[in-house]
Structure formats: C-alpha cells, structure tokens
C-alpha cells in the first residue's frame, strides 16, 4: 500500500489532503447520485 497512497491524474499528484478531498468528492457525488436515483421514476416502488 506504500505507493498506492499517491495518485497521479491529469498531471496532478493527489496525496494526503488532495487524496482525501478526491475520495470525499467521489463519495459526495455518489451520495447525490443515489439521492437523485431513488427520487426519480426509477426509484418508484
């Protein structure tokens, strides 16, 4: 897991605080996506 703590993406190195904000941003996007999904017509029981 030593080298996986660093991520190079689009010329930017995500590490430590940047990495946390990246993962937290993906989580927030997934959360909002799920909220939209369950409140759309696909989420109607």
């Amino acid at each position, binding site marked *: 897991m030593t080298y996986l703590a660093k991520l190079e993406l689009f010329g930017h190195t995500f590490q430590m605080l940047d990495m946390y904000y990246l993962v937290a941003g993906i989580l927030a996007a997934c959360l909002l996506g*799920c909220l939209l999904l369950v409140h759309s017509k696909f989420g109607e029981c």
Partner: protein
Amino acid sequence: MLVLLGLLVPPYLFGDDRYWLPLFTRYVALAIFALSVDLIWGYTGLLSLGQGLYFGMGAYALGYSLNCNGPLKRREHRPEPSYCRISWNTVGYRRCPGGWPADSYLAGDRRGRNPAHLGGHGVRLVTFRLRIRDVFFSIITKRWSWRRLLLSSINNLTRGASSA
C-alpha cells in the same frame, strides 16, 4: 447535508497528519462501498452476498495492472513478474481506448474498473431480465463471488502460479 458537511471535519482535525488522514481516506473509500450496500439492500430489499465481489474485482485488477506495467514497476526497477506475460501491455495494447498511455495510473484505473463494470452489468442483466429476487438473488450472488475467488486464487491454468 450534514453527512456532506461531516466530510470536512477530518481535514480540519488532522491537517497533514500522516497517520490519521490516510486512515480516514480509506474509511471514506469504504463508505462508497457501504453506500452501494445501502442502496441495494436498504432500498431495493435485495440481499447481495457478493457485494464485495465488484469492490474486490476492481482492486484486484487495478493492483494487477499497476504491478505489471504501472508506476510500481518503474519505481522499483524490478523485472517483470511471470504472470504479466499475458498483460494487455505485453500483447501490444500500448494505448487505451481513451487515448491514455497504457502504463499510466489512469489507464490502470480504467482497466481496474472495467472488469468490475462489466461484471456488474452482467449481473444486472441476468437479475432484471429474469426478475430474480429474495433468497434466490442472495444464493446466486454468493456463488458468483465464490467462483471469482476461486478464479483469482487458483489461476494456474493461465499464469503458471497463483497471483492472488
């Protein structure tokens, strides 16, 4: 909204702490996984006993890809492991469909996500087309995850040894 605001608390508390901040980064990554369990079990009522399968497939494929032709290999200057003989890069797959070099992290991420993505779509098609539900869905997902575990740990048919 409170959950989203709560995500800002760890950086405020731990700052540049090299122990706690990476730990909370992993917790947040696992929260994405927990969100998927919540969606499929809590909302649809389908108990998926193989929910970790796709999470594990993505991690396995990403690690496999990085180990064979990613930054891990470049940094450690080590010879190519024998199980990399069939890796996509060594069979002439120099560039990914998106145009990224095959040895970049992003390419590894694409290859890591693709098996999980395709596997998820396969299960989705079978589940919704055949309207599988209740305990049958649990049994099938359990067997799918077990089959994938065997494929990962007893793969000497193609790679000469276990790469799990």
